[in-house]
């Protein structure tokens, strides 16, 4: 993926992909016999779990790890739990995965059906958190956040991905219904939707503001949208929610509409799968489907040392196993050939300044990285704007010395949180 253009006076201009004009319907992946469900809560080996190996679950049933847990996963099938184990993510974050072995009976759970008549924030949050698109419903119920603006993302924030654009173009009806439900449910004052700049804006009739987003990366990132369209300057170290704005994927809106219409949660997620050679497959797969099932369907070969990228090339993450499941927020999956993987180095920063030119947040990356390398995180935050970074990854993309800058930055932010908790505990 050598992207350098010959003439480069102004630095790179990366354009987000656009959905094809007349998109095909997605191909459906058969529900696999065994599904992997991820739950964002660490497994404590010293405690007894609520759900145990061998338990049976119904379709749509919520799985809680412990009695007082608030996080839950929803099983898209009925079947038996065959294993529960830990899953390690980025920066040592620990999640838990369940493996559900599907049975043929397909018994539904009627938990949601009972409350589905009157859309209500609290009940929605307690059943629909892991709908495709992962609606951030808890943000509305959180008393610490006073959300007054909801931005629906009809644009894909990373490169290569076109899933949201596809849904925006093809599910107008559901979107309108979903927005109605959301407005009624949350009572939020302002709802906006982001669309690619060349899309037609026939959604404005709904009393929804339409933000036309430039195709240039990273204009579709939440903080960029806040700055460019809401005229709210993101405060370093604060989340968008802290400033009263929440972002929601368009797929979440559609799933909400469908769930209330059929009085049952939906489990089928749309995603774009990109092969090594760049061919795209639009896919519909049940949440929990291991990636190898999808790859098998399209006869996609993966080799030792290839890279499996969940998400886009700038902000996604690399999976270390083909059993990594489709999650509620998995919009894109791509396979990168091992020969196309750019190497990183432990060279020092040579001060070429490309990162500073490219950074949309004006972070002095060239100096910041020196302090991060020296483990001086607090100084990095105080004097070199660590917290202003919006995590677009462009600095790493251009770094002449091939320093994994973005990784250093994420690590720095993580360490800052650790330092803060330490200080608070002391």
């Amino acid at each position, binding site marked *: *993926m050598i992207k350098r253009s010959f*003439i480069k006076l102004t630095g790179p201009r990366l354009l987000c992909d656009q959905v094809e004009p007349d998109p095909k319907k997605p191909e459906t992946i058969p529900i696999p016999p065994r599904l992997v469900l991820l739950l964002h809560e660490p497994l404590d080996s010293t405690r007894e779990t609520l759900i145990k190996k061998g338990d049976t679950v119904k379709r749509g049933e919520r799985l809680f790890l412990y009695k007082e847990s608030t996080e839950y996963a929803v099983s898209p099938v009925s079947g038996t739990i065959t294993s529960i184990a830990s899953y390690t993510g980025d920066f040592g974050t620990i999640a838990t995965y369940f493996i559900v072995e599907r049975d043929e009976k397909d018994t539904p759970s009627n938990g949601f059906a009972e409350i589905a008549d009157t859309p209500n924030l609290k009940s929605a949050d307690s059943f629909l958190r892991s709908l495709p698109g992962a609606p951030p419903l808890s943000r509305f119920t959180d008393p610490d956040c006073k959300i007054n603006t909801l931005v629906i993302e009809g644009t894909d924030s990373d490169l290569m991905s076109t899933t949201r654009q596809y849904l925006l173009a093809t599910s107008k009806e559901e979107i309108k219904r979903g927005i109605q439900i959301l407005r009624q449910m949350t009572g939020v004052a302002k709802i906006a939707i982001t669309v690619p700049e060349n899309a037609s804006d026939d959604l404005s009739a709904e009393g929804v503001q339409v933000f036309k987003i430039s195709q240039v990366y990273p204009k579709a990132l939440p903080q960029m949208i806040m700055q460019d369209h809401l005229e709210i300057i993101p405060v370093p170290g604060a989340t968008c929610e802290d400033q009263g704005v929440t972002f929601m994927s368009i797929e979440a809106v559609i799933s909400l509409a469908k769930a209330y219409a059929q009085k049952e949660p939906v489990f089928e997620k749309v995603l774009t799968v990109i092969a090594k050679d760049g061919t795209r497959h639009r896919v519909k797969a049940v949440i929990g489907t291991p990636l190898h099932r999808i790859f098998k369907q399209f006869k996609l070969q993966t080799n030792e040392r290839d890279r499996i990228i969940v998400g886009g*090339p700038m902000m996604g993450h690399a999976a270390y196993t083909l059993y990594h499941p489709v999650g509620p927020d998995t919009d894109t999956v791509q396979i990168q050939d091992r020969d196309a993987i750019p190497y990183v180095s432990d060279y020092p920063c040579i001060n070429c*300044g490309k990162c500073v030119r490219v950074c949309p947040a004006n972070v002095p990356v060239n100096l910041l990285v020196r302090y991060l390398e020296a483990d001086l995180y607090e100084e990095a935050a105080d004097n070199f704007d660590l917290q202003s970074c919006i995590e677009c990854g462009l600095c790493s993309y251009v770094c002449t010395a091939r320093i994994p800058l*973005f990784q250093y930055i994420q690590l720095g932010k993580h360490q800052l949180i650790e330092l803060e908790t330490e200080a608070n505990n002391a």
Partner: protein
Amino acid sequence: MHKQNKYTVSHAPFWHDGDTVTTLNQNIILAALPAAIFGILKFGAPALGVLALAVSTAMLWELAFNFISKREITIADYDSAAIGLLVGMMLPATAPWWIVLIGTLIAVVMGKMIYGGIGGNPFNPAVVGISVLLVSWNAIFDFDAALLNYEFGFTALAPLGALKHQGVAAMDLFQIKELAMGNQVGSIGTVFGAGIILGGIYLILRGYIRWEISLSYVAGILITAFLFRLVNPDLYASPLFHLFTGYTLLGAFFLAPENSSSPVNLTAMIIYGAMGGVMTILIRNVGSYADGTVFAILLINLINPLIDRIRPQALGKGVNNA
């Protein structure tokens, strides 16, 4: 359980624009070649000898330092080669071998390696090397004496030396066009102004140097020289004369924009470049040295950390949580 492949796991981003330190330095060397080759054609085998010795010894010094400090071998990044080439280009073709040796030693070791290698150096290494040679063996840089044995088809006088000695009358001896085309006496790689500009434009277009620095440096030269001439045309030479003589152009396109010792923010880059140009002319017109480029560049390197604090506010900096 079937066998799992091991996949590459690392952090985003997963793409890269393809630049490396090696390509950067290769391009700098490439851009310097027109002027260097011109010098070889003009001054013959001795010039080739000086350049070859400079490049090779520069790399050897770095290799030796890598060994002694028990660090990874870094010469494959061509950084020392580029430093060596620039040192060589600033020497006259008749420079004795030991001058070349000492020049690259100081440039590479004192200018760069002791600061932890590439990226750490606060001063331009090649300029450190040349300025130490200049204050030690001033006579070597007396280009008239150095090139006494050459027969040229043009005025065989070093323009800046002539300017210092004979005053502004010396300007009449030279035509700007001739100077730009390299028909002048000087060091191997700096006589061919047009070639240096060509290389500079190449580097700018390809994004390998920061154009703001080069252009403001040239602007600083032209404007300051113009102002001096406005005040007293009988005493001071014209802007273009200054531009096409001495190390000016090499300074603007190859020395001042050296990555590690120059600023990266817009305002800072413009102050930095302009200061370099202004100081160069000040030294030539008011100070002791015939050509002040290397000291002017050391001086702007020195102020770089301070002025590079002038930078645009980072996103959200200073905003209160609304």
